[in-house]
């Protein structure tokens, strides 16, 4: 009771000075769609928070320097060895700093989860068409954040200056170097000399803890700001149109859910950090250009690049006398194409569909079989590349010669994506036609009927897109046909509200309006021309006696509380005086 009173006082005094109430009221009334897939981006956000929190801890103990030092600490096999300060401080913070290892491991696990959540979020956006107008800007920001996350993950993995990451750093150095003409200049500017340089660790550190996180924070702010400004997209469904958002209010419903998700992210990352060992640099040893450890792979989010390097044949050629080294095609060109494709996708997709309209309703993935098929094909290629990055482990476990593994994966990389894409395309068509909820609902008959339909269409040479038989196209879900009427009422405080009553749904608007006209206009915007009816306030008007009883009860409770407190205070003072 007292906290509530304090909060109210605080809120009022803030509002007096800053006029926060209208802003907060609007913020609290923001509607979040209820579908779980809208929380994937939040997973990435909260992983980022964990990264910042644990990262600050690590910064206090890490020394970003390659200066020669002698480690002395409780890790016996390293005690007395000469290593770089970066490596020595990493081992020291793992073994001699309380909770240091937990923080370091949590940081690393959170980094893996951060990028994984970004990728899942991106896939959701991609397959549901959420990148379409008006959300292209946010797609571009998101792809930029993905690139920054990859870069920051790589620098974070490399700063401890251990044997495994040093190998990866050497690869990145060579890949950059392989760019014709520019490469040598780039690596000299970035690394300050021939690999390995003394400047690399301090520079990566500055980029890892300052530049990229600051850029990420700014981009996250822009990402969320645009999201609030544009409002959420939503899946089609009863009562959902291009002009409204159906879901939960930010306060209190969604706040609780999102805080719960935050708590879960903290729990999972710290549990992994405490229970599962990650990147044991004390075992790998300090980096030495003359040494290597095998098997060696990078973290999963750059492993696709490593896999491409391993799979691609070593091709070297000359352009105008300049030797183009073999890492150029799989490293620079493939990586460049990947991100160029990601950046351009909203515009490619738009040109393809010739749609210049704004889209607030998402596509269920099956509604765009071609997009689904393309996405699945690309994903399959990347899955093969990820497997290729672990070819040495596959070879070791299955006792197959590593070159055979490589040959098999080369064949798979070429042969698998297109059939996988075609399969996804066909499944989408079958699902469209059968109207089933998921792949599990399909029957053989569904598959057969679509095959027949496809064959018939191919035979007739007609380019129509409607599916053979089955349910009407789902654009109709969003049409106001099943929304019966709009109900308007005036609440106790004299403000106007409205809700939409449809078949099986009852959707209450989140805004309050000062006049009936405003409420009516808002309802018309959301649902077009529906019959409008003024009704009694839902839940019944609160009668005067009931209100009085409520108020009297509250007063009685408060008085009783204060009296009890006073009595307790009196009793305690009496007792202390008696002593």
């Amino acid at each position, binding site marked *: 009771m007292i906290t509530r009173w304090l909060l109210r006082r605080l809120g009022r005094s803030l509002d007096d000075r800053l006029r926060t109430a209208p802003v907060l009221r609007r913020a609290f009334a923001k509607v979040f769609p209820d579908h779980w897939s*809208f929380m994937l981006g939040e997973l990435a956000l909260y992983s980022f928070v964990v990264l910042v929190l644990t990262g600050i801890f690590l910064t206090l103990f890490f020394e970003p320097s390659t200066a020669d030092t002698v480690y002395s600490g409780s890790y016996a096999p390293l005690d007395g060895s000469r290593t770089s300060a970066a490596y020595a401080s990493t081992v020291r913070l793992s073994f001699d700093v309380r909770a240091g*290892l937990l923080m370091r491991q949590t940081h690393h696990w959170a980094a893996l989860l951060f990028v*994984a*959540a970004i990728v899942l979020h991106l896939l959701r956006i991609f397959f549901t068409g959420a990148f379409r107008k008006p959300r292209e800007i946010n797609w571009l920001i998101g792809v930029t954040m993905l690139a920054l996350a990859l870069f920051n993950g790589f620098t974070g993995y490399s700063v401890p200056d251990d*044997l*495994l990451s040093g190998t990866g750093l050497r690869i990145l150095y060579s890949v950059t170097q392989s760019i014709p003409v520019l490469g040598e200049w780039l690596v000299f500017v970035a690394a300050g000399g021939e690999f390995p340089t003394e400047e690399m660790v301090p520079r990566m550190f500055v980029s890892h803890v300052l530049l990229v996180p600051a850029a990420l924070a700014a981009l996250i702010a822009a990402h969320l700001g645009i999201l609030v400004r544009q409002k959420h997209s939503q899946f089609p469904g009863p009562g959902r149109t291009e002009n409204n958002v159906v879901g939960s209010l930010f306060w209190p419903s969604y706040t609780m859910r999102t805080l719960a998700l935050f708590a879960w992210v903290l729990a999972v990352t710290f549990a992994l950090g405490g229970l*599962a060992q990650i990147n044991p640099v004390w075992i790998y040893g300090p980096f*030495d250009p003359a040494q290597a450890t095998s098997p060696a792979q990078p973290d999963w989010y750059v492993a696709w690049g490593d896999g491409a390097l391993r799979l691609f044949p070593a091709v070297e050629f000359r352009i105008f006398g300049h030797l183009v080294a073999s890492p150029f095609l799989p490293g620079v060109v493939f990586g460049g194409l990947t991100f160029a494709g990601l950046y351009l996708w909203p515009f490619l997709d738009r040109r393809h569909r010739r749609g210049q309209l704004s889209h607030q309703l998402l596509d269920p993935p099956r509604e765009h079989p071609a997009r689904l098929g393309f996405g699945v094909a690309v994903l399959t290629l990347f899955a093969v590349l990820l497997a290729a990055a672990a070819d*040495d482990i596959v*070879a070791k476990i299955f006792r197959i010669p590593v070159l055979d593994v490589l040959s098999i994966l080369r064949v798979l990389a070429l042969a698998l994506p297109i059939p996988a894409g075609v399969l996804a395309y066909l499944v989408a068509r079958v699902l469209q036609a059968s109207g089933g909820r998921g792949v599990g609902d399909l029957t053989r008959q569904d598959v057969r009927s679509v095959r027949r339909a496809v064959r018939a269409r191919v035979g007739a040479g007609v380019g129509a897109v409607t599916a053979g038989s089955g349910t009407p196209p789902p654009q109709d879900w969003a049409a106001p046909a099943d929304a019966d009427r709009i109900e308007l009422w005036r609440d106790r405080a004299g403000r106007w509200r409205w809700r939409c009553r449809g078949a099986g749904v009852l959707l209450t608007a989140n805004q309050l309006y000062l006049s009936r006209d405003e409420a009516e206009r808002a309802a018309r915007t959301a649902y077009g021309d529906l019959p409008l009816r003024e009704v009694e306030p839902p839940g019944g008007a609160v009668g005067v006696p009931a209100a009085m009883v409520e108020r009297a009860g509250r007063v009685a409770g408060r008085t009783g509380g204060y009296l009890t407190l006073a009595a307790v205070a009196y009793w305690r003072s009496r007792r202390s005086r008696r002593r």
Partner: protein
Amino acid sequence: MTGTDTLPARRIAVVLAVLGLATGPVPLPAHAAGPAPLSARVGGAPDRPQTRAAPAPPPPTVPTPTAGASVPPTDPGGGSAAPAIPPTTGPVSPLGADLYLRSCASCHGPAGQGSQRAPSLVGVGPASVDFQLGTGRMPIDQEAAQPPHRRPAFSAAEIRAIVAHVSSFGGGGPQIPAVGPGDLRDGRELFLANCAACHSAAGVGATLTNGFVAPSLDQSTPVQVAEAVRVGPGLMPAFPESVLSPPQVDAVTSYVQELRGNRLDRGGASLGRLGPTTEGLVAWGIGLVLLVAVARWLGSRAGE
């Protein structure tokens, strides 16, 4: 696992061997009791570079230095079963000759001269024979390019007898090295410089060419590690004393013992110490799956 572990099968083998001494022909323990090794063809052996210090021809097969819970002769743990068996008496031990003729001669020849199926054993040295037998790689009952590490087929005393018998073929070769505790720090540095490129810095092993693997060192006893260092079994290069001094070998064996088990896994579950691949699988398969399940659950609680 230490060398002093007494495995039930080996205990049985020792008992059988003792009974055999008492009653006549020696029944062989389980592994070797089957048909005599069909083949010990050695994939890479003929073209092995002959660069080692000792003039040792290739060992009987192409294993690499892993090893098992065997009891090498210098290991005091083997002494538990020893009293019942007459101590090896050099090249004339009837037990060694008997076991050799039963389990080895069909491929390596009765005088160790080798055959089409297996290389000569003349001059391989006691360290090599002890390593192959002690890690259970020999005798093999099935043709394999690289016999895996197994439980040894013979008891410690039997191995000693066979080693002595094979040594009687002549030719010298590396002796079984004596190992003692060494410096952990030197061991770590030497291991990373000389061993990690194939056996991995974590000692879990890695793949080599043509399907050969540098095996995991998780079961190697100090003596077996030292033997492998000196002998260079399979594709492994040999490190004679001119390259690694005895104290340096002691240091390496000590560090390998530190790598064994999970003593160095201070961060929790080791995930096989396979590096970022398993870590990525755990991040996706456990971390992200769990969090997505949570998101789905929270989504289903909308409106509550």
